[in-house]
């Protein structure tokens, strides 16, 4: 039973993923179709790249829906592929009928996806079959034929062209563009990059009709290509533009030499053969010199490299290990300096160490920077979702985005998609009222959700603010009491009550709408963000709106930690959750109802002793103690420790073994000399302390 349920859940998850991916494809296709129709309205030729994109999207949707057994959509996509293929091959012109077919198919698939989300796809296949019938009728119409253009091209090259490439060639000739053959050779190990750069450069001034490996002799480490190019530029200008030697671009059009188009075609092949073969042979002798020269000039275009994120992870780990080694070196230098016999060497070593530290910091920053990506992609995804929600419901909601250029570690950005999506959907579904309700409350009819990201020190803050109905703290209290999370008479501050929104199983609205990801609450959002080493916080004013604030470390790999000692053990505390540290006079510790407190500038700071919390054995009560003030959002906890041992950069590693997760421990790190040191999970400690207080208070009240 249990396994079957899990299977079902997985299937529905896969299903949801399919629907959202299909929706994305469809969303793009809508935009592309609009562009296509606009272009036609202006009387322009359909942009071949646009038609290609549409063709590819039909192809992806065909595969995707086939995989999920949605035969109707798959079959329809297959026929659409046919239509688009004809358009891109120029076999048929884009006419009103074709545009209508494309538009209708998008509408049909869109409504099919909605039905699918409801779990009922009845009738989709029938509708698809009707549309397929119309498509078949359209494609049955005769295709116009096009006379081939006259060109000075190697017949071998012409034979190698695909039907599409041939069509593009004819089309370009028809429009009076010049046709050229561009020769280039690349290092065999990196030709893909070189070729991609050259292709990109050509695209700026024309169209690459075909890329063919060139048979000409070349040094062993080089590979030659001939690109068939259409451009307004003549051969010399094109060569200059591409920063290639003049003889690397040969003209394939007759019009360069003002030759008459009336010249009999049968002659052409021979002259062409010679013309094409000769330059190839000419460039061969100096290919040895020419090769590097061409490469050198190509390098000027080269500015980016694609790197596997795992390689960056390895690099990052290596830097992490180096950082640990540096720590050991620092300690050695200190030890040496404190011994009079070695003080001088110690001082020297310390100086060397300082230099090393600076360089290491630069290296670390450099590697980190490479991993950074802007939040833009995620934000764009969210704005697509809001656009779709707005279309599917009758709510009027505007999504404002600020700080999309803020950068975060790529891994974190990927993990942020789900929690952010959830927060935005929550705002859309639950927070923003209907237009009528808003008007009645004296607000603008259109609601707004603002997503804002900015960097603050070593953290990135992402805030989602809506101007909706806000959270009614009294409703939260009633709900929490119902669920047994709270005793009826408990005194909680507004903040503490709002924080209950993150408690598992507490949803502030009874109903769960289709779009909000049923049953998944803010507790999951908090869990996701905490897993990233981040903190999520919420503020709300009833009737005015809600702000969810997420604070995330810029990178996961290395964090700054405070090293503390309790009993005979050391622990690392992530510095981003340490607010301050205090040297404690035991007389300042007050007791209230069995709990220890500290008066911190007028606020009562609850205290926990780390040694007791983790049963580490007795630490001397009389001995001086430190309070590390931990902060998660607005919650504060004073953690009492015996020693403060300084700050250090640490690499958090997961603990492997039979016991995977220990409450209160986020992982471990290596400190160079003493093996593993545990890293505290501050948010779990703070949560537990608070939960215990609530529990104790409730327990005492109940007789």
């Amino acid at each position, binding site marked *: 039973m249990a396994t079957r349920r899990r299977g079902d859940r997985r299937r529905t998850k896969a299903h949801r993923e399919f629907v959202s991916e299909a929706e994305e494809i469809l969303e793009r296709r809508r935009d592309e179709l609009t562009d296509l129709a606009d272009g036609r309205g202006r009387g322009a030729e359909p942009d071949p790249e646009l038609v290609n994109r549409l063709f590819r999207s039909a192809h992806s949707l065909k595969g995707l829906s086939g995989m999920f057994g949605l035969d109707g959509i798959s079959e329809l996509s297959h026929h659409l592929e046919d239509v688009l293929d004809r358009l891109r091959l120029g076999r048929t012109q884009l006419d009103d009928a074709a545009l209508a077919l494309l538009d209708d198919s998008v509408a049909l698939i869109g409504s099919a996806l909605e039905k699918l989300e409801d779990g009922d796809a009845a009738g989709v296949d029938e509708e698809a079959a009707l549309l397929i019938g119309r498509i078949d009728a359209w494609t049955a119409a005769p295709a116009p034929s096009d006379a081939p253009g006259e060109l000075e091209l190697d017949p071998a090259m012409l034979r190698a062209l695909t039907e599409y490439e041939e069509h593009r060639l004819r089309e370009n000739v028809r429009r009076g563009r010049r046709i050229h053959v561009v020769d280039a050779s690349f290092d065999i190990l990196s030709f893909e990059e070189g070729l991609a750069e050259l292709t990109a450069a050509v695209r700026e001034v024309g169209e690459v009709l075909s890329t063919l490996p060139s048979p000409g002799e070349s040094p062993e480490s080089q590979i030659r290509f001939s690109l068939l190019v259409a451009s307004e530029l003549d051969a010399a200008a094109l060569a200059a533009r591409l920063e290639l030697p003049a003889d690397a671009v040969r003209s394939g059009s007759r019009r360069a030499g003002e030759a008459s188009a009336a010249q009999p075609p049968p002659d052409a092949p021979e002259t062409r053969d010679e013309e094409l073969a000769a330059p190839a042979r000419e460039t061969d002798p100096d290919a040895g010199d020419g090769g590097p020269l061409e490469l050198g000039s190509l390098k000027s275009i080269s500015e980016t490299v694609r790197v596997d994120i795992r390689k960056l992870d390895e690099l990052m780990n290596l830097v992490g290990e180096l950082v640990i080694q540096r720590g050991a070196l620092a300690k050695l230098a200190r030890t040496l300096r404190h011994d009079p016999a070695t003080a001088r060497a110690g001082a020297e070593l310390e100086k060397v160490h300082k230099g090393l530290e600076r360089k290491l910091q630069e290296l670390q920053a450099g590697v980190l920077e490479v991993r950074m990506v802007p939040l833009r992609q995620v934000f764009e995804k969210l704005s697509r979702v809001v656009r779709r929600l707005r279309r599917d419901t009758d709510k009027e909601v505007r999504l404002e985005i600020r700080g999309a250029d803020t950068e975060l570690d790529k891994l974190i950005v990927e993990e942020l998609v789900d929690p952010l999506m959830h927060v935005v959907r929550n705002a859309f579904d639950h927070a923003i009222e209907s237009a009528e309700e808003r008007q009645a409350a004296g607000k603008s009819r259109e609601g707004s959700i603002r997503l804002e990201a900015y960097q603050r020190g070593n953290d990135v803050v992402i805030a989602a603010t809506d101007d909706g109905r806000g959270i009614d703290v009294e409703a939260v209290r009633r709900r929490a009491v119902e669920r047994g999370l709270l005793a009826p008479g408990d005194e909680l501050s507004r903040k503490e009550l709002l924080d209950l929104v993150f408690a598992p199983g507490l949803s502030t609205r009874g109903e769960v709408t289709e779009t909000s990801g049923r049953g998944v609450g803010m507790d999951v959002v908090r869990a996701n963000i905490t897993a990233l080493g981040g903190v999520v916080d919420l503020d709300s004013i009833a009737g005015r709106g809600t702000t969810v604030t997420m604070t995330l470390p810029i990178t996961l790999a290395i964090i700054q930690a405070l090293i503390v000692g309790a009993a005979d053990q050391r622990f690392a505390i992530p510095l981003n959750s340490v607010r301050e540290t205090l040297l404690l006079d035991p007389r300042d510790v007050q007791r209230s109802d069995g709990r220890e407190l500290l008066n911190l500038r007028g606020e009562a700071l609850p205290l926990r002793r780390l040694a007791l919390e983790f049963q580490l054995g007795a630490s001397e009560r009389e001995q001086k103690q430190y309070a590390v003030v931990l902060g998660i959002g607005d919650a504060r906890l004073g953690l009492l420790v015996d020693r403060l041992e300084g700050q250090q950069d640490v690499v958090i590693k997961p*603990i492997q073994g039979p016991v995977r997760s220990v409450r209160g421990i986020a992982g471990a790190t290596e400190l160079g000399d003493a093996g593993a040191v*545990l890293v505290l999970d501050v948010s779990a400690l703070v949560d537990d302390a608070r939960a215990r207080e609530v529990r104790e208070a409730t327990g005492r009240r109940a007789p």
Partner: protein
Amino acid sequence: MSESAATGPRSFEALARAAARRDALDERSLRREFVTFTLDGDPYALPIERVREIVRMRPITPVPRVPAAIRGVISLRGEVVEVLDLRRRLGMPERAPTRASRIIVLHGDDGAVTGLLVDSVRDVLRITEEHVRPASGGEADSVAALLARGDQFVSLLDLERVLELAG
């Protein structure tokens, strides 16, 4: 063309060689290999395929809130690995680690690793199937079988049971 003519006999030869290798493999698979070690004076064994490496005693960092059998974690070239004290796990008298103590690092099925603290590691035992005896009932809890070595029996640990910890 000459290549296609040569494939006939060559592949024939390859087939024959593969068949011979398979026979040798079958014979060898009957003979299994175990790492043997001692606990409280008695010999124990583990299938060698599960052993990734054997390391000397090193500082073990205690971990709070875990079953007592978990002595703590060690750092192993950047990995942090839990160490299970087999004496504690099997209910044997406590003894401080000595110079002979070793940590046997196991591969898990899921790629994760675990360390086992043992009194000492002895050798690799190679025996064939006929030397394997069923475990006596009383020890069925953590011993999977008995391996006959001369007139002595070595207890083969049931790793899945041993690693299954309460809590």
